[in-house]
């Protein structure tokens, strides 16, 4: 089986490009250019140079001794939290801005939920001296003030979105509308493996540096280039796609994707799209979508703003449908417990998103020699308010 995108951007029945006609030529030009540009020697050199010197890659693959003892396996943490700007998001924004420049674009737009992708986009725009507009829901602006100020300090214009529920889904709609109005000079840097083809494949390729490094680093640590398990959280799915990428077709490696169950799968307050969604169209992609019987897209809920998306990257919809990946779901409480545990026994405060991946360790039974690589997609600085609000309930020394 091949779990990569075909040439039309389909992963099985998922993917494709369901976009208004005004964007057709733009998306077509991107589709025709992205692989050619990404394969140019000059591009690769500049991309990997920036990943090394600016982002700080390779990110460490850290053998978590105490965590390993607790869960009875050889657990490695892929430390994307140590990247510049604090998450894996910047791998993709560096790649896309280099691509945008080569395509002659002058203006960058992006959507953001919690603000991590917005900050990563504003950062590379400052670096490359390009105009940057970030769409962000008014609800998110109110609860992520620090990231809004960071984006502004980096020179981006943050445009508040007042439509719908004023969160990530609506910010994405608004970014797409901006692109409809400015198709020729603007490149839209989508933050995850979502949107019309070629975005899911392009973002996965830019993030695939995560699994390339895991392979090299495991060779050094374990004398073999593949783990038994890979674990990552999924919202749109970019860090998971990057973590799995090199091993998609390598069936020796078990893939585990962890969704946000929110307050619980049955509560109606969840963001577990693969578990709860039905096939549909969202933001230009055919994938699993959380929706009403009538096909209206519903607002998901998770304590983690980065997993709070009613769709899922088509690559993951297919991995799940083909049973190539096991898809688990962690509740808010399970994620919080895992975040406090990692902090207490390894001294690493993870992002709430990454805490969902960590919560999966308690749901699985491993054999002692199993090698598990788990991606810590981001650091917890942005989530300190949430952690402090739950401090008394979860801060128990093990």
């Amino acid at each position, binding site marked *: 089986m091949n779990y990569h995108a075909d040439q039309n951007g389909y992963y099985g029945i998922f993917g*494709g*490009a*369901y*976009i*208004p*006609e*005004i*964007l*057709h*030529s*733009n998306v077509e030009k991107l589709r025709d250019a992205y692989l050619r540009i990404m394969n140019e020697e000059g591009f690769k050199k500049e991309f990997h140079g920036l990943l090394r010197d600016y982002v700080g890659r390779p990110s460490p693959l850290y053998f978590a001794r105490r965590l390993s003892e607790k869960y009875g396996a050889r657990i490695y943490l892929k430390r994307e939290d140590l990247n510049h700007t604090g998450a894996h998001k910047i791998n993709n924004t560096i790649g896309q801005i280099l691509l945008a420049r080569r395509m002659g674009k002058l203006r960058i737009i992006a959507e953001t939920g919690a603000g991590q992708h917005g900050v990563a986009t504003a950062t590379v725009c400052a670096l490359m001296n390009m105009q940057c507009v970030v769409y962000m829901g008014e609800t998110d602006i109110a609860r992520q003030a620090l990231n809004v100020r960071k984006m502004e300090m980096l020179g981006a214009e943050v445009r508040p979105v007042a*439509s*719908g529920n004023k969160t990530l*889904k609506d910010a994405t*709609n608004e970014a*797409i*509308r901006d692109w*409809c*109005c*400015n*198709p*020729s000079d603007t490149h839209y840097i989508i933050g995850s493996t979502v949107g019309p083809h070629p975005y899911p494949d392009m973002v996965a390729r830019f993030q695939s540096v995560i699994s390339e490094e895991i392979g090299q680093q495991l060779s050094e640590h374990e004398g073999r280039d593949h783990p038994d398990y890979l674990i990552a959280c999924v919202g749109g799915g970019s860090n998971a796609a990057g973590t799995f990428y090199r091993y998609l077709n390598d069936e020796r490696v078990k893939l585990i994707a962890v969704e946000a169950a929110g307050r619980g799968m049955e509560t109606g307050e969840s963001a577990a799209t693969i578990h709860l969604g*039905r*096939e*549909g*169209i*969202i*933001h*230009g992609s055919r994938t699993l*979508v959380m*929706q009403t*019987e*009538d*096909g*209206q*897209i*519903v607002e998901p809920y998770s304590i983690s703003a980065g997993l709070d998306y009613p769709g899922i990257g088509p690559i993951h919809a297919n991995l799940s449908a083909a049973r190539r990946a096991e898809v688990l779901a962690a509740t808010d409480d399970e994620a919080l417990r895992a975040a406090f545990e990692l902090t207490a026994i390894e001294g690493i405060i993870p992002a709430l998103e990454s805490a969902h991946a960590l919560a999966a360790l308690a749901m699985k039974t491993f054999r002692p020699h199993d090698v598990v690589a788990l991606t810590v997609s981001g650091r917890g600085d942005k989530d300190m308010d949430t952690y402090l609000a739950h401090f008394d309930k979860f801060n128990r020394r093990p």
Partner: protein
Amino acid sequence: MNRIQSLFESKPTGVLSVYFTAGFPHLDDTTVIIRELERQGVDMMEIGIPFSDPMADGPVIQQSNGIALSNGMTLKKLFGQLEGIRGEVSAPLVMMGYLNPVIQYGAENFCRRCAEVGADGVIIPDLPFSDYLRDYKPLARRYGLSFIMLITPETSDERIRLIDEHTEGFIYMVSSASTTGAKDRFDEKTLDYFRRINAMKLKHPRLIGFGVSGKETCDAAQQHADGAIIGSSFIRLLSQNSIGEAVAKLITNIKN
């Protein structure tokens, strides 16, 4: 021959088509609006199926979609409302909406119900042309529906020819790179695009929409193509007036 073709044969220039969102301003306004539009001389009606995430629409139509949904409009209810409309109205009716609600309803069910209530055409702005050819064109034929595709200033001549070859009814010309919403006038670049398409001598009639509101834009659309489509400015009038007054003001606006 369906009603869309008949319309363009009987009225080769100056066709006026009007869009409204079903369920706005009130759930049960659908047939009242259609009857009033026909009574006051509008040639064709586009019935908008509300959607939670209308990504090609500007603020006015977005808002009307949100209100229609909170009024409880669904595709099933809409078809129910349209039952019997053919006894009262003879103008062509076009169903316009995003793909996801259509998929959830079922593509074939949707086409069958369109035909049963007497709709003539369908516009789905986010339906890819390749999916249309594979999945929807056979259904369109089976149920006697015209699927109408959009072209824009960014659409290549080659693609326009392909669309002209494989669709029926008319071609929906998006006036400029934008979402839906009223404009006062078209700039010279837009008029150049109208002339360029005009010179292509396409098989199908063309209607110009997006940004058409008052006399100037409507005249330009009717001069450079076979007619005009008005949406946002009618929605705005509906939110401030009775249905009869809204239609009357719309007609006055484009004449003066």
